[in-house]
C-alpha cells in the first residue's frame, strides 16, 4: 500500500445465519482494530455501532438468501464491494436452512406461524454465489478463525489466500490420527469433505460430519457405497449428507439418491 493512501474499508454483512461465523471474526477483532493504518472496520454491526458508508474494499458476507428483501440487499452489497468473500456454510451452500429446499416451504409456514400472512419468504435458501458473483468462498460451519484470518491477511497483503481445498483426510493424517473408519469401522465424511477444521472430529475419535462442506473433487457415490458396507442405513446416509451443506453438490444429489 502506498504511503498516505486511505486504508481499505472492511464491511461485514449478515443474511440468514446464526452469527457463528461473525463470532469467529470477533475472536480477532481487536487485532483488526489495532491496525487503523492497514484496515478500517467500516461496517460490522455485531462489533461496532458506528457505520461508515460504502463503497467497501472488502465485504465479508455471512448467511444465505431466504427472502425477497435479502435478494435485493445482497445485490446492493455486491454493488458497494470491490471484493466480496462469503463465509460459512449458509453463505457458501445455503446452510442448514436449505433443508427446506427439499420440502414445501408453505407447509412449514402454516405449521410454525400463527399468522402466516405476515411471512414473506422464498421457496429456497440459496448460497450467495447463486445470487451474485463472489470473489472467494470460505467454507466451514462455522468458519475456522485461522482460515478467516488468512483470507483477510491475504487480501491486505495482496496475495492469494492459502486455503486448501483437498480432503479432511490430508489434515487428519498430518495430525497423526489413526483413521477412524479403517481402524474402528466408524462412518466418516472426511474423504469427501474439505480440509480446514484441522480434523477436529477424527482427532476426538468420531467420524467427520461434513461441516466444512464438499472438498474440491469429492467422490460421494463411492463413499456412500463404503458407508453402506459399514452398515449405515440409507436414511442415515441421507442425514449425513443433509446437515450443513444439504443443497450443495454432490451432497445434494447423494442425499436424493439415498432417499426412499
Amino acid at each position, binding site marked *: 500500500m502506498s504511503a498516505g493512501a486511505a486504508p481499505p474499508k472492511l464491511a461485514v454483512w449478515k443474511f440468514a445465519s446464526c452469527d457463528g461465523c461473525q463470532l469467529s471474526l470477533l475472536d480477532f477483532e481487536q487485532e*483488526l482494530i489495532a491496525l487503523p493504518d492497514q484496515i478500517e472496520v467500516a461496517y460490522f454491526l455485531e462489533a461496532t455501532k458506528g457505520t461508515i458508508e460504502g463503497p467497501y474494499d472488502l465485504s465479508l458476507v455471512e448467511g444465505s438468501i431466504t427472502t425477497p428483501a435479502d435478494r435485493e440487499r445482497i445485490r446492493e452489497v455486491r454493488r458497494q464491494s470491490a471484493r466480496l468473500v462469503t463465509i460459512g456454510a449458509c453463505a457458501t451452500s445455503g446452510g442448514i436452512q436449505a433443508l427446506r429446499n427439499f420440502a414445501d416451504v408453505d407447509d412449514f409456514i402454516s405449521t410454525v406461524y400463527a399468522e402466516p400472512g405476515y411471512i414473506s419468504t422464498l421457496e429456497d435458501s440459496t448460497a450467495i454465489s447463486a445470487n451474485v458473483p463472489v470473489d472467494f468462498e470460505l467454507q466451514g460451519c462455522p468458519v475456522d478463525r485461522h482460515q478467516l484470518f488468512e483470507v483477510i491477511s491475504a487480501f491486505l497483503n495482496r496475495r492469494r489466500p492459502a486455503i486448501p481445498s483437498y480432503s479432511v483426510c490430508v489434515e487428519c493424517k498430518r495430525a497423526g490420527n489413526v483413521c477412524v473408519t*479403517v481402524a474402528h469401522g466408524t462412518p466418516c465424511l472426511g474423504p*469427501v469433505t474439505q480440509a480446514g477444521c484441522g480434523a477436529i472430529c477424527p482427532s476426538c475419535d468420531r467420524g467427520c460430519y461434513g461441516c466444512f462442506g464438499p472438498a474440491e473433487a*469429492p467422490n460421494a457415490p463411492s463413499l456412500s457405497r463404503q458407508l453402506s458396507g459399514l452398515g449405515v442405513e440409507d436414511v442415515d446416509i441421507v442425514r449425513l449428507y443433509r446437515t450443513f451443506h444439504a443443497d450443495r453438490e454432490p451432497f445434494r444429489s447423494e442425499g436424493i439418491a439415498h432417499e426412499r
Partner: protein
Amino acid sequence: MRVLERKSLSPLLEALRRRGYEVIGPTVRDGAISYEPLSSADQLPVGVTDEQEGGTYRLAERDDGAVFGFNNGANSWKNHLFPPELSLWKGRRDEDGEIRFTEQEHRGGPYAFVGVRSCDLAAISIQDRVFIGDAYVNGDYESRRRDAFIVAVNCAEAGNTCFCASMDTGPRAGDGFDLALTELLDGGHRFLVEVGSERGEEVLAEVGSSPAEPRDVAAADAVSEDCASQMGRELETDGIKELLYRNVEHPRWDEVSERCLSCGNCTLVCPTCFCHSIDDATDLAGTESERVRRWDSCFGLEHSYVHGGSVRQSGKARYRQWMTHKLATWIDQFGSSGCVGCGRCITWCPVAIDITEEAAVIRATDRIEAVGINADD
C-alpha cells in the same frame, strides 16, 4: 551373531537412551500400532497383533507374549524423518524496512528407531535417495537421518496386505541397520541379533548378549522363510515400467476412478511418498511472515496446478499418476521402484483400492501397443 534375552529388551532401550537417543518404537495408540516416542519398554505392544485387509485394520491379542508379533504400523518412520508439518523460516520486516529471516532449527532426534521392518528400511533408503542423494540436499532430513540408530526387526508373519517378497525388500533385513533382531518364541523367548555397525556392536556390548548357537541361527532362518512364503499379496514387477507406460489409456483407470475418493490417504501413509507444499503466511500488518512445509498429495488438484488450472483434473488422471509414479516413473527418476510392498496404501484406503490388484488387472489385459498420455481425461 548374538542372542539377546527377552528381558534384555528394556536394558537395550535404556542403553540407547543413555547415549542420547530419543527412542521411537511401536506402541498401541487409538486402536492401532503406531511408531511413537517410547519412555519405557513397557509401552511395546506385547501380546498384540494386527489383522489387516484392504480398507480395514484391527488389533487382536496373541497369547505367546510376542513383542513384535504384528506387521506394519499405521504411520511410518517417515513421520519422524520427514515430519508432516515443519516451519522452515520466519521473516520480519523491521522498523527500518529491512527484512530479516530466522531459519528454524530442527529439534528432533537424534533418534533410535526400534522395530524397523525390512520394507521400511528399504523405504528409508528410497527417501534418502530423494532427499539427500543428489546435488540438492534437504538439510532437515539430513540432520534427522544422519545420526539415526536403527534397530531392525525381521517379520515373523506376513500380513494380509504385505508383498515385500515381490518387491525384493524383505522380509529379512539385509543391511542399513545397526542391529537387526529376529524374535524367537520356541525354546525360550529370545532374539537372534545381527550386528550391522560398530556402534551397534558397542550398544550390544553394554546390554550383554551371548553367542548364537547354530539352533538359534537355524530358527531365525526358518522364521524368515516361513514369513516369505505367507505373503498376503503379490505384485509381478517384471517389465512393470513398460507395462504401465504402454497402458496409460487402459480402461481400468476409468474403472478405478469410479471407486477412488481422491482422499490422498494412500500417499500420506506411503513411507516413500515425499510430496509437500510450501505455504507462506503473513500477519495482518505485513510485518511477520512464516514459511511452512506440509505433506501434500498428488490426489489434490493444487498438486498439478500450473498457470490456467490443474493438469490432472480427473480422478482417473490422479490415480494413474499415483500408481504410475510408484511403480514406473520412479524407476526413471530415482533408479528404483517407489513401492516397497509394505501394504499400507491397501490397508488404509477407505475403499480398499489395492495397488497389486490394479497392476495385475492391467497386466492381464495388457494392450501391448503404446499410446500417448492424455493427462486431461
